[in-house]
């Protein structure tokens, strides 16, 4: 028994989940930096958000390049003669580069204190930053044969996760600022709520799907993956922070910080489970 058995490995490993997590924070922080021009309560996040997201862009870029089996060929995705626009990865690489360029311009304007250009570039940077979770979500969605991935809500979920993890990091960056905390608590609560609603929809459609979907549902909800997805991702990282933020304690500084930490743990766990879980069944085919 077992002779001639051929094994298959998953295509994308955990480092991709770390990349998804980092770019989620980048997108969230850029969004809050832009929002700070229109909501005075978020003013402390303008520079902090812009600098932090730019610094994290280096981390994300390095993660992405290091994950390639031919890291030095990453320039191929910027070669117009090679680019294939049917692939979401091609759009993603252009999105990352333009976001990096827009970030540099935005930081320069921030240093100069030019308000008019600051507002415009903040909007451009935030839009490009929100493109990052959208393209990564679409990158999964485009794989037609993968359960969970091949659903239209994945890019929406990644945007909601980006706002949730971005507001979590922003809450940590503005500790001690009561006005900002109150505003960020709202963003944390509503974006985590949106994540919960989308997860319910994903779990429902997966459980009622075909055999590959049903098997993936079993993978996601049992064993170690179940502990990560249900335990860390949904219970500890989504349900618990919502309950915490709705309670009177959740309006206090420690409550918001605790909820922010739980959201960060949860969003990392969700990204890991949503990346790895749907690949498992395929390795047995």
């Amino acid at each position, binding site marked *: 028994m077992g002779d*001639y058995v051929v094994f298959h490995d998953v*295509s994308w490993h955990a480092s991709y989940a770390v990349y998804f997590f980092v770019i989620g924070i980048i997108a969230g922080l850029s969004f809050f930096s832009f929002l700070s021009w229109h909501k005075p309560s978020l003013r402390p996040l303008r520079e902090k958000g812009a600098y932090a997201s730019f610094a994290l862009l280096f981390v994300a870029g390095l993660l992405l390049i290091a994950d*390639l*089996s031919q890291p030095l060929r990453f320039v191929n*995705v910027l070669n117009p003669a090679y680019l*294939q626009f049917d692939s979401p990865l091609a759009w993603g690489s252009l999105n990352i580069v333009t976001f990096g360029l827009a970030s540099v311009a935005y930081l320069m304007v921030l240093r100069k204190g030019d308000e008019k250009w600051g507002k415009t570039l903040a909007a451009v940077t935030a839009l490009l930053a929100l493109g990052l979770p959208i393209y990564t979500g679409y990158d999964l969605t485009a794989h*037609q044969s993968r359960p969970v991935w091949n659903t239209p809500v994945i890019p929406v979920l990644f945007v909601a996760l980006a706002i949730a993890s971005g507001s979590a990091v922003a809450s940590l960056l503005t500790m001690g600022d009561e006005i900002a905390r109150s505003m960020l608590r709202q963003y944390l609560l509503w974006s985590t709520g949106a994540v919960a609603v989308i997860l319910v929809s994903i779990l429902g459609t997966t459980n009622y799907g075909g055999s590959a979907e049903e098997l993936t549902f*079993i993978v996601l909800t049992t064993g170690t993956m179940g502990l990560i997805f249900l335990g860390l991702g949904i219970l500890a990282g989504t349900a618990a922070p919502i309950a915490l933020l709705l309670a009177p304690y959740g309006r206090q500084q420690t409550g918001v910080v605790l909820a922010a930490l739980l959201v960060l743990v949860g969003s990392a766990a969700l990204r890991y489970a949503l990346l790895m879980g749907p690949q498992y069944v395929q*390795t047995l*085919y």
Partner: protein
Amino acid sequence: MAEELRTSSIETRGVAGRKRYAMVVDTRRCIGCMACQVACKAEFDTPLGVNRTWVPYKVVGTYPTVKKHFLPRLCNHCDDPPCVRNCPVEATYKVEDGGFVLMRYERCIGCRSCMAACPYNARFMLPAHRTYTNITNVVDKCTFCFHRVTQGLVPSCVQTCIGRSRVFGDINDPASEVSYLVATNATQVLRPEQGTKPQVFYIAGDRNQMEFGRDAYQRRDVMDEDRRAFERNFKA
């Protein structure tokens, strides 16, 4: 019929004046000798642990009336291949005349997007060190033996198949053997619901092997040690 099924401009099955190579695997004739797997390994020096073609089996029945069902597997050279449209740098492409889905190794960045896109596990990552070639750390796959077919030969797995289980030819040519076999037998393809239009047709394939099923694909505990060895050596 082929024309009616066509949904994408990349598809060439049934297009007049174009070749569309396909393979028919008659599972009734497969004896599980694995000669196809060995011939492929010899032809391409495929490293240990990964395969361009492989022959999984399933034991069916109750003792003493048991039987091994074999299901030779390889790249399906889909008429509408998802791996091609997912590659960001056109490292994988479809040859218009013939329908071969091939790799440009020098372009491949190793993002494994094509591996994720393939519903058939037909692609694999080459290891970092190889003895006779410097083609390493890129994705590889079955080529339908492009180099042999363009010289008028059949793929090496077809050439070596002792039971003539594998038959290869141009399915756009109504006089070819593959056209005859597909026209006169009930054939199945792997995961037709994916809309990839696979060009490997199975005669008398066992549905328990062709579809996802908890029983057919459950992890065999006896293989855990081998699985760990594979993961040790082939995890990127």
